[in-house]
């Protein structure tokens, strides 16, 4: 029992770190963008301050909305929290893992998105309908890409759970797996950008309703509800960054607490990279986003085909 607890300890700490540092990571992206643009930027803890402020405010509800609108932020946050418990941080195993847990992660995230899209339509606002429509489109196209990526990982490692995949991948020779890992990183990177509404898919800082996706869907949420949604979004970003780090930085020989530190450092570098990408390019036209996702799909298929050579 004690031994089990000892192995579980880094996992629990990794989960808690995720819960604690997700907003910090978002701050890191903003800070990077500010620095590249030549500004000082907001403090790294700005998101925490915003969230605390929002939690103390009153919510404003549109008269058109129903209970579904009020439930959606809670559902959104709960799905991401539950999904995060199944995602390993680099080589640190997840708190819960079982054969096929990747589908449970995907299912829970899809449930959260389903709720957010319905809540957007619940307001009867044309802008939010527009956002939900775009979210539905990109989500539908991304789902198969995400599954091919994970299937390629599963084929490469012979494992059927995320934790096991990362465990095996971290013990494989990095130079031989490189031809598979590179296209996988590209595909997962696009998945990260699309799922988290980052540039060049969505502009999180725009002020025009017509050109947003995620932000416009939550236009009518306010107060604690908005805080929940922002936190859920940050956690989701952490989740995808953790997956990306696991595939991108398969470092053998470190284990336990050392790999935990390695994972957090990886997430920080991913965030800085994302901030740099965001600073260096403009948002794509919405009609061109499917092409980007299709490209990621092609990369994941290439990775999948190359697994045959590597194994």
């Amino acid at each position, binding site marked *: 029992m004690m031994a089990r607890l000892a192995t579980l300890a880094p996992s629990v700490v990794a989960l808690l770190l995720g819960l604690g540092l997700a907003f910090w990571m978002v701050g890191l992206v903003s800070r990077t963008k500010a620095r590249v643009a030549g500004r000082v930027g907001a403090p790294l803890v700005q998101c925490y301050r915003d969230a605390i402020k929002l*939690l*103390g405010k*009153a*919510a*404003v*509800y*549109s*008269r*058109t*909305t*129903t209970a*579904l609108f*009020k439930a959606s932020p*809670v559902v959104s*946050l*709960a*799905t991401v929290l*539950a999904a995060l*418990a199944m995602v390993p941080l680099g080589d640190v195993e997840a708190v*819960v893992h*079982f*054969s*096929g847990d990747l*589908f*449970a992660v995907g*299912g*829970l995230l*899809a449930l959260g998105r*389903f709720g957010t*899209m*319905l809540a957007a*339509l*619940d*307001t*009867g606002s*044309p*802008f939010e*309908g*527009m956002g*939900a*429509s775009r979210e*539905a*489109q990109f*989500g*539908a196209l*991304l*789902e*198969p890409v*995400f599954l*091919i990526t994970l*299937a390629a990982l*599963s*084929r490469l490692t*012979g494992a*059927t759970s995320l934790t096991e995949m990362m465990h095996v991948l971290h013990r494989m020779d990095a130079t031989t797996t490189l031809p598979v890992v590179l296209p996988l990183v590209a595909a997962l990177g696009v998945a990260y950008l699309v799922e988290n509404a980052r540039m060049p898919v969505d502009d999180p800082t725009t002020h025009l309703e017509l050109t947003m996706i995620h932000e416009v869907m939550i236009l009518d949420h306010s*107060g*604690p509800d908005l805080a929940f949604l922002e936190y859920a979004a940050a956690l989701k970003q952490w989740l995808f960054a953790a997956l990306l780090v696991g595939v991108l930085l398969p470092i053998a020989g470190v284990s336990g607490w050392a790999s935990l530190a390695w994972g957090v450092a990886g997430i920080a570098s991913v965030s800085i990279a994302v901030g740099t990408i965001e600073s260096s390019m403009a948002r794509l036209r919405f009609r061109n986003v*499917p092409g980007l996702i299709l490209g990621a799909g092609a990369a994941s298929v290439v990775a*999948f085909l190359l697994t*045959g050579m590597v194994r």
Partner: protein
Amino acid sequence: MSPLTFVGAGLALFCWTGASSWLARNHGRLAQGLAGVGGVLASVIGLWGAVDVLVSGRSFELTLPWSMPGSTLHLGLDPLSAFFLVPVFFGAGVATIYGVSYLRHDAGRRRIGRTWFFYFLLAAAMGFVTLARDGLVFLLAWEVMALSPLFLVLFEHERPQNRRAAWIYLVASHLGAACLLALFLLLSPEGASLDFNAYAASSASRAAPPTLLFALAVLGFGSKAGFVPLHVWLPEAHPAAPSHASALMSGVMIKIGIYGLLRVLSLLGTPDESWGWTLVAIGATSGVSGILFALAQRDLKRLLAYCSVENIGIITLGLGLGLVGWARGETTLMVLGFAGGLLHVLNHSLFKSLLFLGAGAIQHGAKTLDLEQLGGLSRRMPVTAGTFLVGAAAIVGLPPLNGFVSEFLILLAGLAGVGGSSASIVVAAMVGVVAIGLIGGLAAATFVKAHGTAFLGTARSQAAAEAHEADPGMRVAMLTFAGACVLVGLAGSFVVPLLGAPLAVLLRQPVAALSVPLFAAADSLGVALLVFAGFFVLLLALFTLRRVLAKRQPAVEAETWGCGYPETTPRVQYTASSFAHPLTREVASVLRTKESHVDREALFPKPATFQTSTPDPVLDHLLTPLFEGVAKLASRARVLQQGTVHLYVLYLALTLVFLLLGLR
């Protein structure tokens, strides 16, 4: 008493109920009462027997004499039959409760008796199809099952589109039946016996190649199940029938096509790998195109009918992966593929029935099923909205509902195949995984559109603004189905091991040989259940936190943000078509959506109009021209028929001469 007695009694009671409500047709309320009591009683009795067989894994046979040469009245009840009898009895029983409420306002009219007669005849015939163990008995039951929905589709026969739907249904159904006739004759050893046991025993000595038999089975049963491009009758027939009948047809009857396919597969012996490939291809095509067509529809019932095509695709995908595994001797792939397909049969019967009943409630309450006329119904129809939401989430495959469990099994099968050694298995599994992913994403878009435009926002028409909630009986039925969706979703780890017995019948292997992958999957689902339990705890905790915060700072009411314009109208809302447009535009060449618009660009523009509709391209661009071509060719042969006796005498003489020359 043996379970076969219970099942038989249930089916007989269905027949009796149908007959008695028809006899009582002049007394609307009596007919309704008889239908309600008889239907529910029959379901409970039959369900008892079916569940008993499913849990115990035993089989029962009964042979009665009848005066057909080469045929015996051979009935049997094994776990495979029992598995399909569960949706038959459960679906028919719950939909009966709904129907009694639904038809209440029509009770003064004579067609009530007729509707109930054919409804129960359909239910009984579906049961008898699963019990038949003889080719002739099977075909007779099949034909009754195929014909009775015709009269349900013609419920409102005064509408021309319903007569057209009935006609399309009849043609599709009989083209399928023709294939089945050929199939059962070719299956028998030297045409001597039509008994299923004889079919199975003669699998080595049969003259017809097994692949031909498989192809006939796919065509015959596929036209009932709704494989693309044989699906054309579904979007026509389902909207025409009364909603409880649509629920039975879409939820249960099309699955009997799947049952037939599985039963014949169990008789054909070890399959060829190409069969698995065929089913994977059909499944992926039906699944993806079905959901794309569903996405483009604006009539809710048509949308649901196309979505049935999609779900049949998912089922077929699972079965195809199972067949590939069977042919290759990969146990995990075989068991999980078949198990996922089979479980999706049950799951789809629950959520699709639920959604059709919801559509019926909307038709009743808001007088239209055109999504562009609906909106804001969840305030006036909370129970319908809530249960429809459960059904929508379940059909999309979201956890922790039942659709997730069956798709989880198919995806696990996909992972097992992806890790396989032979290229053909890997590619088949990959196609399966990609298709399930794409279908899942598109289904989410479709049902956000359906639920969002019908129930959320504000009413787009006067009728929707004045909608009323469904009657109590209808609500009970919808709540029952929704409860079943949640229950199967949460109890996945207990339901999955039950699939061992039906799979053992299908694969002709002992249950023990199949149980390892099943129990492994059940274990995974058990851990997943823990995660979902944690999810519920989190939900509760967050709701409590939310409530505490709201006490300190009470919420304020306002209007929806409209860029500063306070006065908005329902017409500014996103419509169902515009919601789907970004996706349907990508595949416009397949969908062939018709757009008609009047743009008025001038200094002082007059009102502009824009309209889209998506009729079935397979019907319009493939089948209709095909049948017209056949008719044209046939009319050429009319030259031979001049209606003059001399000419016919000449034909006779010529034939005689021809025969004499030939026989010499």
